[in-house]
């Protein structure tokens, strides 16, 4: 009977079993016996030789690149050169699953840019695009239905990720480890640090969607508003920060100093470690340190003194407040600048300053570096020839700033999607739509390193360059980056919410700072200690 029906008994039963396991993110791993057990922390965190880093020498930057980890800085869009010849593809279909954080572009049949992209790639590129916030649902179902395609973005840390990758993804170690990556020069142009996030169970199982240091959270200040009030926006310690914040606050005019309590700025000022502290292989969460309670007390005082926008917790809208002038300072990334310039309502006076963040001793503080990667992308298992072809395509996707391939990738077809205006590429209305505001979702497959360049705003380049130059040598990375904790992957998000809610309660005066000890105790029992233990074992395996 079931032989003739499209939905037979066996399909139903296997579906039911998969669904039971699928909620835990391991649906399609049923029956797989070759993956590493999640309890074998050392095996999951086994090290591998990382790909060589060969920095591409592109157009001469407008400001000197004094540190190899700093991106090149440009005032203007540089002259571009063609860096790849021929087509990377073989004419076949390449299907990808990606999130998007911009409006969805028109489908292939109505998108000149997409058609031109396929022509340059020599591929029939199909993309399953999902709004960023909904991506986990899509990913989970597509995984269970074996519909992820050839390349698939992994956003965040799905549970049992190493096992998932071992079961479904191609181990790229032989293609990318060490000097093997030199065959793909623009993948080799991605920093070594980014590749550490792609290693699981002793193999390179993904390529990074790297963002690097430019994604660091810093303190952005409305320099024009500070100058208007005659207030110096620099500060040497918490007292000075609070003092200038008081001068920039005028509740009667709906003006506050901060859009929200700048937690990461205060953490750097108090010398807190980036999320975890590692000493001799032993890990301590920054939440457990006394300095964290000092930070909570400062945040509580800032809120009670009315220095922080009153809706910062209940209805956060920091970007609008900053642009509008309701908030003179906001904690945001270097990459947020273009958005602020675009929504500027203050006219030509609008200037963003980025003061350096001092440490406890008044000198440059240890600013927290972000995860070097926005996300990672895995490649489905395939024959060696196809894997090499896909890596060629990914190499094309990573063509760097300063190349003609980059200009096409971000801006589309000249005269149709963009035009040069005073030497700067400016998207047309059609281009905005077809390229997804210059962020066509292939940038979530792999992307080139991001330069310091703000079209039409050389002052932005100056501000970011100066700040980064001072900040970078002292910035600190989270010591757990590149380590895998199974407990963190299953409980980390919930535990973070507990801590975040408790922090808000303290800032809003609902609970005293002394309540933090019981919160930390709850965090430890709820999984914090298990995560610590797993990180310690993982650290031992990798060092």
């Amino acid at each position, binding site marked *: 009977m079931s032989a003739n029906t499209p939905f037979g008994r066996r399909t139903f039963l296997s579906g039911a079993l998969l669904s039971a396991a699928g909620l835990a993110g391991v649906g399609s791993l049923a029956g797989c016996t070759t993956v590493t057990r999640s309890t074998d922390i050392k095996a999951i965190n086994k090290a591998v030789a990382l790909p060589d880093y060969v920095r591409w020498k592109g157009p001469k930057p407008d400001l000197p690149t004094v540190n190899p980890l700093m991106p090149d800085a440009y005032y203007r869009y540089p002259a571009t050169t063609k860096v790849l010849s021929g087509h990377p593809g073989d004419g076949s279909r390449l299907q990808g699953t990606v999130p998007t954080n911009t409006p969805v572009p028109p489908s292939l049949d109505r998108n000149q840019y997409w058609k031109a992209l396929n022509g340059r790639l020599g591929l029939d590129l199909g993309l399953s695009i999902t709004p960023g*916030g909904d991506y986990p649902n899509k990913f989970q179902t597509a995984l269970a239905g074996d519909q992820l395609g050839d390349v698939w973005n992994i956003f965040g840390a799905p549970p049992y990720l190493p096992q998932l990758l071992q079961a479904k993804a191609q181990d790229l170690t032989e293609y990318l480890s060490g000097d093997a990556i030199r065959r793909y020069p623009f993948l080799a142009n991605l920093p070594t640090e980014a590749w550490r996030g792609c290693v699981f169970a002793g193999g390179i199982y993904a390529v990074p969607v790297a963002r690097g240091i430019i994604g660091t959270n810093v303190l952005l200040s409305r320099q024009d508003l500070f100058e208007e009030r005659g207030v110096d926006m620099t500060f040497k310690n918490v007292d000075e920060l609070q003092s200038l914040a008081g001068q920039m606050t005028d509740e009667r005019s709906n003006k506050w100093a901060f859009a929200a309590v700048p937690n990461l700025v205060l953490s750097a000022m108090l010398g807190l470690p980036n999320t975890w502290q590692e000493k001799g292989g032993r890990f301590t969460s920054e939440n457990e340190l006394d300095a964290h309670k000092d930070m909570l007390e400062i945040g509580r005082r800032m809120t009670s003194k009315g220095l922080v926008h009153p809706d910062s917790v209940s209805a956060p809208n920091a*970007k609008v407040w900053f642009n509008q002038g309701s908030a003179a300072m906001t904690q945001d990334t270097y990459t947020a600048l273009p958005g602020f310039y675009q929504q500027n309502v203050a006219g030509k006076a609008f200037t963003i300053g980025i003061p350096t963040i001092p440490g406890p001793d008044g000198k440059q503080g240890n600013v927290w570096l972000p995860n070097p990667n926005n996300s990672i992308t895995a490649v489905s298992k395939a024959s060696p020839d196809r894997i090499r072809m896909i890596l060629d395509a990914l190499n094309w996707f990573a063509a760097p700033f300063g190349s003609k391939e980059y200009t096409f990738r971000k801006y589309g077809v000249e005269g149709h999607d963009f035009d040069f205006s005073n030497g700067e590429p400016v998207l047309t209305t059609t281009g905005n*739509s077809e390229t997804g505001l210059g962020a066509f979702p292939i940038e979530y497959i792999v992307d080139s390193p991001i330069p310091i360049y703000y*079209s039409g705003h050389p002052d932005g380049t100056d501000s970011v360059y100066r700040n980064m130059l001072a900040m970078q040598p002292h910035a600190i990375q989270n010591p757990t980056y590149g380590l895998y904790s199974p407990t963190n992957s299953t409980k980390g998000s919930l535990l973070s919410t507990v801590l975040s809610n408790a922090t808000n309660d303290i800032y809003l005066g609902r609970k005293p700072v002394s309540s933090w000890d019981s919160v930390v105790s709850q965090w430890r029992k709820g999984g914090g200690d298990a995560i610590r233990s797993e990180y310690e074992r993982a650290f031992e395996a990798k060092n």
Partner: protein
Amino acid sequence: MTTTHGNIEAPRKAPVPSAPARKKRRRRLDAPSMPIRLVKGLVLLIICAVVIVPFIGIASTSIADPKEVTRAGGFVLWPHGINFSSYESLFAGGVVTQALLVSIGITALGTLVSLTGSTLLAYSLSRPGSFAHQPILIMVLLTLLFAPGLIPNYLAVKEYGLLDSFASLILPTAINAFNVIVLRAFFMGIPRELVDSARIDGAGDFGIFWRLVLPLSKAVLAVIGLFYAVGYWNSFFSALLYINDTGKWPLQLVLRTYVINNSQLGGAQLGATADQLPPQASIQMAILVISIVPILIVYPFLQRHFAKGVLTGAVKG
């Protein structure tokens, strides 16, 4: 007549109210005094304002000058000028226009399929003695108690070969058990005598259904139709899971990409440039207007049936 029979007491005369009591009652039945009416009017006015002002704000913000929106913190109650840049931005590239057509098609076709299926199922379940009456009814009720999970649903759609087809947006949600129960309850309330008389007049089962039951059920059909139509119009999740071709996305899913990550929309990405875009608040308000206007247009035509139908379904069971 006030005679008594046996131990049955004669009905007592109702006590005649005294003059002040009569006056009091009359006063209570009179129209309320002017101050009371004013207070009532004021209260109603406030309630209306609470409902209407946000709508005015939404429409105003969507057509306000972008700079005015940002200056006002994202919400303009009364714009100083009219600016359609939010709508121009949304409709640029034709994605929203196409999605609008898809949504209209899905809503119309889906409502037709759902209403047809639900009505036929409910009618058959309302006739005692129909084929496999009890097992089918239990199966329908079970879907109310045990909803299938995300992945089983996805696998079912995939195995039926419906991925990336419009059918995947209609068939999995075509029959809603709650609506079937409401329809069944209504059909059971139609007097059996009417059905029997139609049968005596020579009507067959389908004739009874088509020429007698359906004309008597316009109210409930309008309500259930509206339920289904609103459901299809607002639905985005099925498309999110089952449709990879963005050209087949319905309006709600396309609009979702504008609001799901509002921190990024206003800004060109990571060193890229873009034309000046309206603020996120303007876009969001324009999205609200675009997504609610079609339903607002349909609603008044069904409102008459809506109140009647909901009451009918609610008290009979």
